[in-house]
């Protein structure tokens, strides 16, 4: 429950909505109970009154029948307003929740996200936050309304006869607290097993589909199919077991709420017959108790959701409460126009993986306005090196300097102005082309945008689109071809006009022809900039001033491409055996 505190706190700014939503929830359940109870009493009272003509004539029919009509309207209107208000509250919470999460994740990004990227972490975060959205509407509100109904009915019954209140509370608490707890205990193991089995089946299915060709040729598809079938059978069995538990819960819910009314009636009859209260109240008590259980019905689901919400809250908090890996200076203490970059004796290992050094004593000087390519097998540390320069991480030891000034002396705004990154992973947002470009320079005019597009050789393409700059890029730039997407990323980077460019596999995934064309455009735009490439692409290696070959976190050699080819055996072999 403690895990939920920060999220409950997020409800505070919306307290007015919370209060009104709960008020109308209570009003509705009050009207529901009132409608049935009053109707029951009304029938009994009129039935008795009808036995004698005088009593019938004196019977005040207007107050109760107005009450019944009033409750009927109140119940309908109350429910409608309650649903609107609780959804309004939820939607407001949803907004706060996302903003809250984003504010917390932003300083530590993208380090925290990069490390887990493969495992669908982002999707899970989004799902977790969606789950947390249900905190008010599915947990807080129904619990409070159920509590209200319990108080309302038991106070009234206590006033009639305390024993009735006790009977009611016994059943109500059993149904509202013990039963959900019991079914939770019964289902906990199975529920976890279902999740586990689903995850296992998913991993194995992905592997099998991925390896279908291999499995087919080696005649193993049928065997794997058989294993998946068996895993699926286990899953279905577990789900059936869960349905059994779920069904038990429902059966008990029906039985207990019915039994509560019956037992209350059983206890009430001798009291009424002994003159404890008017016999017409028998129907009121029975119907009132029956109606009160309406408030308990959502509770089992609420507890189930609560479990999920707490789990989601814990996961979210492990992310939001991790310390930010990099803190920037608020005020800059240095500035420079020199765009030379130097790495001095860098040591680095990723948090949580201190055994394996990602970089060891890396020394590298890159003169201003020169170009360099860092080459090496995957995992050799070349991307890490680039990420240290843009301060996604801080090095464990050593210094990085731009224009001779230490990196940590710059403010974040300064560093971002000086260094830009174009990578295969540069994100294209599902927004218009203009919005995507404006990320590079928020104040850019259409004139400037057109110029950047021209330099990226994308102007004709954009001009040919029916909506031009207002065309949507699609999810991850899906409406653009590979080459167009890279050019858009290039144009965006050009708008920023940074003197230092880091190009992390900018042409990865492009076909030969497109790659060559893109590289031509790219080099034409790199005049006068310090460019650091991370790439294997031949045409880049042949054009850059120097190539730096890395292996296992260390720099092996650094020279021009042709020199390296003749002087460095491991480099030549690496280049020749690239699995292109």
């Amino acid at each position, binding site marked *: 429950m403690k895990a939920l505190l920060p999220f409950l706190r997020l409800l505070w700014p919306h307290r007015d909505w919370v209060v009104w939503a709960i008020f109308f929830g209570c009003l509705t359940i009050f009207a529901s109970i009132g*409608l049935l109870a009053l*109707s029951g009493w009304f029938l009994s009272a009129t039935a*008795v009154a*009808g036995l004698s*003509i005088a009593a*019938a004539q004196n019977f005040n029919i207007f107050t109760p*029948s107005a009450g019944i009509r009033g409750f*009927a309207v109140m119940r*309908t209107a109350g429910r*409608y307003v309650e649903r609107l208000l609780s*959804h*309004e509250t939820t*939607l407001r919470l*949803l*907004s706060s929740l996302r*903003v809250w999460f*984003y504010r917390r994740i*932003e300083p530590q*990004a*993208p380090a925290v996200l990069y490390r887990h990227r493969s495992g669908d972490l982002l999707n899970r*975060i*989004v799902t977790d936050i969606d789950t947390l959205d249900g905190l008010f509407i599915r947990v807080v509100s129904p619990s409070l309304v159920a509590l209200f109904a319990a108080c309302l009915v038991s106070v009234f019954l206590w006033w009639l006869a305390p024993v009735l209140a006790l009977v009611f509370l016994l059943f109500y608490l059993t149904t509202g607290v013990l039963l959900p707890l019991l079914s939770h205990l019964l289902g906990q193991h199975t529920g976890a097993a279902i999740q586990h089995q689903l995850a296992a089946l*998913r*991993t*194995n299915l992905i592997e099998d*589909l*991925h*390896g*279908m*060709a*291999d499995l*087919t*040729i*080696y*005649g*193993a598809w049928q065997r794997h199919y058989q294993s998946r079938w068996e895993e699926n059978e286990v899953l279905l069995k577990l789900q059936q077991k869960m*349905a059994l538990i779920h*069904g038990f819960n*429902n059966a*008990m819910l*029906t039985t207990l709420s019915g*039994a509560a*009314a*019956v037992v209350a009636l059983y206890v009430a*009859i*001798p009291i009424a017959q002994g003159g404890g209260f008017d*016999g017409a109240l*028998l*129907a009121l008590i029975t119907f009132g108790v029956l109606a009160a259980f309406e408030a308990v019905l959502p509770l089992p689901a609420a507890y189930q959701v609560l479990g999920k919400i707490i789990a989601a809250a814990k996961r979210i908090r492990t992310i939001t409460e991790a310390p930010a890996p990099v803190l920037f200076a608020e005020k800059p203490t240095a500035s420079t126009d020199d765009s030379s970059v130097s790495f001095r004796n860098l040591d680095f290992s990723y948090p949580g993986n201190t055994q394996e050094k990602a970089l060891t004593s890396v020394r590298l000087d890159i003169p201003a306005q020169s170009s360099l390519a860092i080459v090496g097998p995957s995992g050799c540390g070349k991307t890490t090196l680039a990420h240290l320069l843009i301060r996604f991480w801080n090095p464990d030891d050593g210094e990085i300097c731009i224009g001779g000034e230490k990196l940590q002396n710059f403010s974040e705004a300064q560093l971002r102005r000086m260094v*830009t990154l174009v990578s295969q*992973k540069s*994100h294209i*947002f*599902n927004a218009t082309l203009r919005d995507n470009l404006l*990320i590079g320079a928020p104040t850019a005019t259409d004139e400037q945008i057109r110029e950047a597009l021209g330099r990226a050789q994308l102007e004709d393409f954009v001009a040919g689109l029916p909506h031009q700059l207002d065309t949507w890029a699609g999810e991850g730039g899906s409406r653009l071809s590979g080459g167009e997407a890279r050019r858009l990323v290039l144009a*965006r980077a050009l708008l920023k006009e940074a003197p230092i460019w880091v190009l992390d596999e900018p042409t990865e995934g492009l076909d*030969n022809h497109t790659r060559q064309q893109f590289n031509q455009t790219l080099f034409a735009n790199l005049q006068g900039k310090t460019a650091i490439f991370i790439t294997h692409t031949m045409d880049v290696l042949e054009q850059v001033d120097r190539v730096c070959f890395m292996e296992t976190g260390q720099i092996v050699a650094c020279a021009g491409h042709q020199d390296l080819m003749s002087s460095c055996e491991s480099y030549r072999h690496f280049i020749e*055996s690239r*699995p*292109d």
Partner: protein
Amino acid sequence: MSSAPLLDRIQSLSPDSRRWARLAIFLGGLGGVCIIVQAGLLAYIIHAAFIENTPREALLSLFVVLVVVIALRGLLAWGREVSGQHASTLIRRQVRAELLERLQIHGPRYVKDKQTAPLTNTLLDRTEALHGYFAHYLPQKSLALIVPLMIGLSAFWVSWVVGLIFLITAPLIPFFMMMIGRGAEKLNQKNFTLLSRMSAHFLDTLQGLATLKIFHRSVDQVEQIEKSSERYRKGTMAVLRVAFLSSAVLEFLTSVAIAMTAVFLGLSYLQFLDFGLYSRELTLQTGLFLLLLAPEFYQPLRDLGTHYHARAEAMGAAQEITAILNKPLPTMRPTTLPVTQIPGISLDLHQVSHHYDKGRRPALVNLNLHVTSGEWLAIVGASGAGKTTLLNLLLGFLPLQQGEITVNGQALNSLNLADWQRHIAWVPQHPALFDGSLGENISLGDPTITKEELIAAAGAAQADKIAVTTTQSLDLAVGEQGNQLSGGEARRVALARAFAKDASLILLDEPTAGLDRKNEHLIMTSLKQLAPGKTLIMLTHRLDTARNADRIAVMADGAVIEQGTHHELMTQDGVYAELVNSGRQVLP
């Protein structure tokens, strides 16, 4: 209520499921009977205790019966849940089986086109999404007609006025169902689109966080997130204000029915009204009975409303599932002919052409090639020359469109595909590995491969980091999709697979990519030693690797342009010789 033909089609996959669905309906119907009996008993007891002043002891047996009926109602609800689950289990089992079988028939290329992740999603999550519809919604749809009908008739039997109060809405029931349906559907669809759009925006922002950071724009996004969720809130509330109306109408009907019943009966008791009871005396018992039935009359409809989202979810899932199920099956090959095995396999390709899409450059154009039994042929060519297409044709993953391929004189088309594939060992460029041990990945579960054979195969594949000499290293875990191994190691596992399989035709796709000189040499030696008499075809874009082969075929633009031994090709002075003389060892 729009029918759901796609869902009907899915249900028809498992006719047995209908029986369980009918059982669920039957149990639900019995539950309806229990509701009526329960109301009758409660009404009688209150009547007896209050009007007749019957002592509680005299009513004890009725109390017992009442409790039994209530418990029975619970049990019936339980049974309903379980039989609904059974129906859904049968369907989901069948859907998964059919889907997997279809995928197998359409083959690896189709699976690759459709991508692993969305297909897994269809097989798992989308199939799970069918559950709510078949387990709950479908039985409830029938019960929403049956139970109100039973209750309405019981009410009619007691009082035609109250019966009328209920039944006057009966012809409206389908109308209201439609309203709930439309309302809920609209709610679901609009709300869902809005929600997924907002979730997508949020996800998009998180995915782009690194990019936003680079441009120092990440802090500004707070405002964007606020704006997008605000838009979502306004849009959703507009939908909800209307959508909640339909359930409010049902709520209102329930309340009005209770109120009208109560007022009518009250007035009848007081003898202000005297009709509608078939001239029978109105007792408290009958009155309470009718009153208790009023809310139950609408309850099944309200329940249907709560299951409505399951329908929308299942409809979406059904579209994806039937899209795969309805894809026409390829014309089946005659499955009779086995491969005649004159020791070894020779291949003849005559005028073979292949187009993937109309308008695109053909991948193969009138390709002719002969491969003699027992020879080692290297096929070299730049990427895009058609090497992979040729390989897929030989593997049987692509249908032959034009030309002829014969195996030992038999048309490849006429062979039983599975039997043909039994004669092939294949080392792909990116071999698939499976979570499990090294040994399992080499044998792929083939029970006929002995441990000794496994060790020998692994040794021959020169897996240096994974050099297998002891049985222990065969137990080395390779991780999910082999993520504990490097690309080069993975290829060596695939080589070991090929060595372990006693196949007459071995196809190798870039066997030496990513290997260092030493390992490359060792593997080439192993390949040479591999039981003589086997036919070996090796695809590569590295000229020095190709030189290991007996014969080299050079491919360009979908055809074989030169072939012969290294020396023959060098003396021919053609493309190959030019490439070798240029000093470039690697084709682009």
